[in-house]
């Protein structure tokens, strides 16, 4: 076991998969000589060469399409978006080509698209977006979003070995801020399975990504007040792990859904409506969603803080439910 950061976990997963499987390769802007805008692929170019770590022209649709074509003939490309925000330029290839190939005509498309996403870094509207909403209604894609270094590594390995297109949402804010003890041996975290980040009895907080840490902080404060929260870290957003969601609801009967993505049409809406549809009789109160406000991500620190869900928002939602 070694302590490594979230970013190092991503790097290790890539490095080990590149070493293990010659069909794995990386492409994107500045991933080669430079080692990536966030230095995730640093040293890979020297180790694996220019044909496995490919600097591309500035053309997200082009290199995502190329990844799709390579995947169709047996490769396992990992595409790096420099920032998740630029995935919008590859939207058509992901949604209409990658997502539909297998269903339409049987073409398995094992690509991974790494999307460094999320706010809290004063990046403004184009360097802070949560992009899962772009793809959440698109059947055929898988979307994962690890919140820990352990999961970051295990989910990335699972994504690379998976035969479907996977959008891997890596939260920039967590890159160097969190660490985990990681086993020496190879492991994967299965796609489609949530985890219990904290066991508890009174209220369930269902969340993912950086907000898991916000939830944990809130839970600790609440614990001191004698309120016991169960935190579900979804890990996979598409498809959702309904079983884990329903299990916690049946246990606590009170639910807060928390995410950094904007509220309207967010993942939280799906989680909430699944619960209402299938666990209605278990609910002892409304399902409260806490999410970013429905605007682009504002730049100034003051506005961004108001935009992104904070611990205090979780506290007041849970307390409201407890009083319910």
């Amino acid at each position, binding site marked *: 076991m070694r302590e490594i950061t979230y970013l190092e976990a991503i790097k290790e997963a890539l490095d080990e998969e590149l070493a293990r499987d010659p069909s794995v390769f990386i492409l994107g802007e500045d991933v080669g000589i430079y080692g990536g805008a966030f230095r995730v692929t640093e040293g890979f170019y020297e180790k694996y060469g220019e044909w496995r770590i490919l600097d591309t022209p500035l053309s997200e649709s*082009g290199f995502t*399409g190329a990844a799709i074509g*390579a995947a*169709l003939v047996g490769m396992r490309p990992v595409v790096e978006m420099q920032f998740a925000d630029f995935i919008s330029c590859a939207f058509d290839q992901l949604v209409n080509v990658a997502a539909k190939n297998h269903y339409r005509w049987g073409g398995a498309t094992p690509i991974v698209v790494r999307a460094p996403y999320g706010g809290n870094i004063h990046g403004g509207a184009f360097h802070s977006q949560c992009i899962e909403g772009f793809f959440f209604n698109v059947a055929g894609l898988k979307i994962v979003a690890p919140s820990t270094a352990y999961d970051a590594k295990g989910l990335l390995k699972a994504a690379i070995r998976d035969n479907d297109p996977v959008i891997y949402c890596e939260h920039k804010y967590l890159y160097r801020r969190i660490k985990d003890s990681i086993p020496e041996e190879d492991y994967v975290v299965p796609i489609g399975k949530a985890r219990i980040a904290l066991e508890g009895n009174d209220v369930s907080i269902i969340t993912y990504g950086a907000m898991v840490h916000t939830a944990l902080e809130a839970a600790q404060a609440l614990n001191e007040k004698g309120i016991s929260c169960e935190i579900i870290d979804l890990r996979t957003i598409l498809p959702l792990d309904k079983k884990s969601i329903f299990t916690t609801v049946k246990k606590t009967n009170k639910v807060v859904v928390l995410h950094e993505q904007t509220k309207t049409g967010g993942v939280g809406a799906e989680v909430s409506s699944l619960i209402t549809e299938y666990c209605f009789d278990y609910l002892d109160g409304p399902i409260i969603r806490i999410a970013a406000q429905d605007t682009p991500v504002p730049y100034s620190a003051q506005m961004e803080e108001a935009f992104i869900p904070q611990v205090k928002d979780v506290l007041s939602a849970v307390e409201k439910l407890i009083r319910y």
Partner: protein
Amino acid sequence: MDAKREDLLQLYYYLKLTRRLEDRVTSLYHQGKILGGAWTSNGTEAVSVGFGYALEKNDIAAPYFRDMGVFLIRGITAKRIMAQYFGKKTGVTGGKEGNVHIGDLNFGVIGFPSHLADNYPVGTGAALAFKIRGEKRIAVACTGDGGTSRGDFHEGMNFAAVRKLPIVFICNNNQYAYSTPLQLQMSIKNIAERALAYGMSSKIVDGNNVIEVYMAAKEAYEIARNGGGPTFIECKTMRMHGHSEHDSAKYVPRELLDEWKKKDPILNMEKYLLENNISQKAELESIDSRVKKEIEEAEAFAEQSPYPEPEDGMKGLYATPIAEE
């Protein structure tokens, strides 16, 4: 380089097969027997037959929707294609997709996504894979004149050129994108000029001359296969039907059609084979009989095939389904 007699007869066969298949589809469409719409390559068959026939077995095609010749040449049978048009379970995609939305990697054919030029980057990616693995395979991608205005055309061409990938890009320049004539699509005289933006070699060929298309493709494939990088081939031809079979194409000047009619690729080829004593009328007729029979059998097969079950549509979303505990 000269084409062998055997190849020439095969080219003729595939031209005929493509024409008769699509003509039959057209009739069936007007009889209401085809599910959805019908798009054909009528008048431009020499393009897909030419570049399709020039492929080697292990090469990969990333076609567009007027590439029926490629599907057939690669080995996707008329039966399966006809069943596809009927929306039958025995169709190429089991009824999940329709008409020309065909793909089957068992025959080296990447599926056609409607979004034009999307297959330029996708084909480029297949070529990239060959290059990474050091395989002597090439990819070919095709789109229409209209498709060359799309961003994915640009991004695919550029990436392939920068990396000198083993791919050949074909453009079926049939003068129109739906109703839109070339001069409303671009201000260049030859689409081949688009290749200049990428430092890519290009070639203009008579898209109604199957031998010319075939030879140009073959040559470009060999260059690509041997590390010489991509070529762009503009095939000048003319769409002789409407955009689809429900479009009467009133916007196309009659004289233009009359003029191009004289240059029909099948008549062209027939004349060539006969005048050069490569074949005789009887032989060509026997090929045509074979084609006719094949299409009749395909139709019968499609007619008799079962429709898919409603539940079939719920299957196959993922290649790796989520494991249930």
